[in-house]
């Protein structure tokens, strides 16, 4: 009896966590899948009913959904790759620099700012008449730019904010990785005559690859979820130029649509795309290893 009680204790202790996990993750996930096959529109106030794959077919006819996919892909391609390159470069460049600790702390500040707050701040920075960005550009004879009212500049503006905010994240990961590389490996390479570039290419970069991969995966997932910055600055405009996919899901499901069924179908697609992209990244790395380009 006593033994039975002892066996139950661990289960009882993890039960609250399991219950919370079921309530906060599994149930909403199941509900999303269920809703995606139904005509579930809160603004209509009618009973929901099964409509098969209609919500999914609707996505391919929805021009705003397609435009939001295009902009998200652009953001993913330009912002994430820029963050990766810049973050890695900065991590390498500040090593051993005078005041390294101060620079390191200062560099991670943008990451600490909540995206909603940075959205408000950047909206002021981009202000057409009184914004510091246009003032700074005017020093070089550039006339005022409509950062939030012109499709091209609005997209560029969002990309710049994303790079500003998330380059520090990549930097931090790479910088931490660099600290853990055994110094004797580098010293041995130097003794063998390797210069700075060779040490970087043949020792440091291959050893950092797992970290870079994790950073890349995290940024891809995060980038697909971009919402706050758009919400606070352009509201997806002009037209639908800066609609990110997540922002569009919010509009359909919460802000203007109240179409829970369609928003759920859009979310399921987002989930599938995220899984595919992350798997592609992992596969590329594994393929390189199999082909012998791994470096280790």
């Amino acid at each position, binding site marked *: 009896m006593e033994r039975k009680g002892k066996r139950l204790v661990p289960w009882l202790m993890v039960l609250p966590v399991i219950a919370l996990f079921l309530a906060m993750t599994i149930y909403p996930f199941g509900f999303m899948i269920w809703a995606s096959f139904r005509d579930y529109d*809160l*603004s*209509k*106030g009618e009973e929901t009913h099964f409509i098969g794959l209609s919500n999914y077919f609707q996505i391919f006819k929805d021009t*705003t959904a397609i435009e939001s996919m295009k902009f998200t892909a652009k953001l993913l391609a330009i912002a994430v790759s820029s963050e990766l390159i810049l973050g890695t470069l900065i991590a390498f460049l500040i090593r051993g620099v005078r005041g390294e600790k101060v620079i390191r702390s200062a560099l991670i500040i943008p990451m600490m700012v909540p995206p909603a707050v940075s959205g408000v701040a950047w909206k002021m920075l*981009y*202000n*057409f*008449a*009184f914004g510091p960005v246009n003032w700074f550009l005017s020093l070089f004879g550039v006339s*005022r730019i*409509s*950062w*939030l*009212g*012109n*499709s091209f500049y*609005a997209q560029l503006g969002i990309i710049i904010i994303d790079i500003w905010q998330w380059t520090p994240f990549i930097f931090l990961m790479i910088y931490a990785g660099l600290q853990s590389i055994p110094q004797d490996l580098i010293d041995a390479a130097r003794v063998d005559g390797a210069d700075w570039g060779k040490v970087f290419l043949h020792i440091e970069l291959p050893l950092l690859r797992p970290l870079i991969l994790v950073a890349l995966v995290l940024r891809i997932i995060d980038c697909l979820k971009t919402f706050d910055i758009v*919400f606070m600055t*352009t*509201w*997806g*405009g*002009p*037209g*639908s130029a800066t609609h990110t996919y997540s922002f569009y899901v919010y*509009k359909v499901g*919460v*802000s*203007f*649509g*109240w179409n829970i069924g369609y928003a759920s179908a859009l979310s399921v697609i987002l989930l599938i795309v995220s899984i595919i992209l992350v798997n592609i990244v992992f596969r590329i790395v594994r393929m390189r290893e199999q082909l012998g380009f791994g470096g280790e």
Partner: protein
Amino acid sequence: MKKFLAIMLIVIFSVFAMAATKISVLVSPDNADALQWLAQEFMKKNPDIKVEIVPLSWEVLYPKLLQDLRSKAGTFEAFTYDVMTTGAVSFGLVDLGEFMKEHPELLPEGYDLNDFIPAVLEEAGKWGGKLIGLPFYNNTMLFYYRKDLFEDPKIKKAFKEKYGKELTLPTTWEEVVDIAEFFTKKYNPKSPTEYGIALMFPRTHTLFYMYLLFFGEYRNAPLGILRHGKADLEYGEYFTEDHKPAFNSEEGLKALEMMKKLMAYSPDPLGSDYGETIEYFNQGLVAMVPQWTGPYLMFKTTLGADKVGIIPMPGRSVSGQWALGINKFIPEEKKIAAFKFITFATTKWADKNKFLKFAVAPARMSTLKDPGVRAADPRVPALEVTYVTQTHRPRIPEEPKLEDITVEYFSKILSGELPLSIDTLNELANKWKEILGK
């Protein structure tokens, strides 16, 4: 021990009996300060009721209302709702007409429903023949201009020399074009302001109502009435009399052409919203700005009352009223407390004082006629005219969806991404028909 328990029970019951009934009122930020003050005044007179005012931004308030009312959760007791969301939230509001009949004793002394401006009570307070809300903030758009510049003899002379006519206050958008050009440095290097007019055409709900300032002028002109019939309060000017889209017409096209024409004299119209345009006028960057009633206090404080002129909107204004309603899905005693508060907040006394103290535009005729109010606030004459002539957005439940798709099209047209043609407007009208199931 038994004695102790009995005493404890009595104490606990007494505490519960004396505890105040707490009500939460969800409000938009525009209404928050006034309602906060009114809540304090109310609680002084009703210590048994505790009122908590919860300000939420427009973007958060409306989804929160819909979500809570649909789920019948009853997490708040009363709320302010924007006139255009009336149809969408109406199902979750208490029928105040019936409630008043059941509880006439709860009405504040001298409470006069007939004193509300009739059109405002109809538009903000009624849905499907029922009284579901009490008008609180009778917001509308006014046309602010730099009085000091318009009255400057040198500027008036320069204008006459350039255009061969007097610089007068504009009554139509056609008249605004010349004035806006005159006050834009790019077209008139001697202009005291850099731009003529601050316009807000962003990709938000703002563009949806801004369009009506222009469309309303043509839609409600005799020829427009002949073509589209009169607009009603349920569907508004965007629709014809028989509830079909009215904007895919010559009038609809003219409105967008006018908006595009004026964009040349405005700082970043597609990237500017409420806050930016207020700032442009406040900082002296522009000579004119169409804005809601609220920003007047800021203009008065920054520029000085003598520099700020107010006239009714050239063309037409647009109503932006807010009403106070009670959540249908709450217990009876909470409904009673909420009813006491919203009737208190909409009495003649409250209507007058919220206008004088917080610039929350009046919904009662007695306030507009009050000599003290007329002497204290220069907006009153313009408001009187505007309340009669203003246009209206649709109040039907589909409004948010219509709004979003419309703003997307208009934003693309104004930025040149879509052609400004009747075909584009017909395409938009077809999308409307899909949403409306017609």
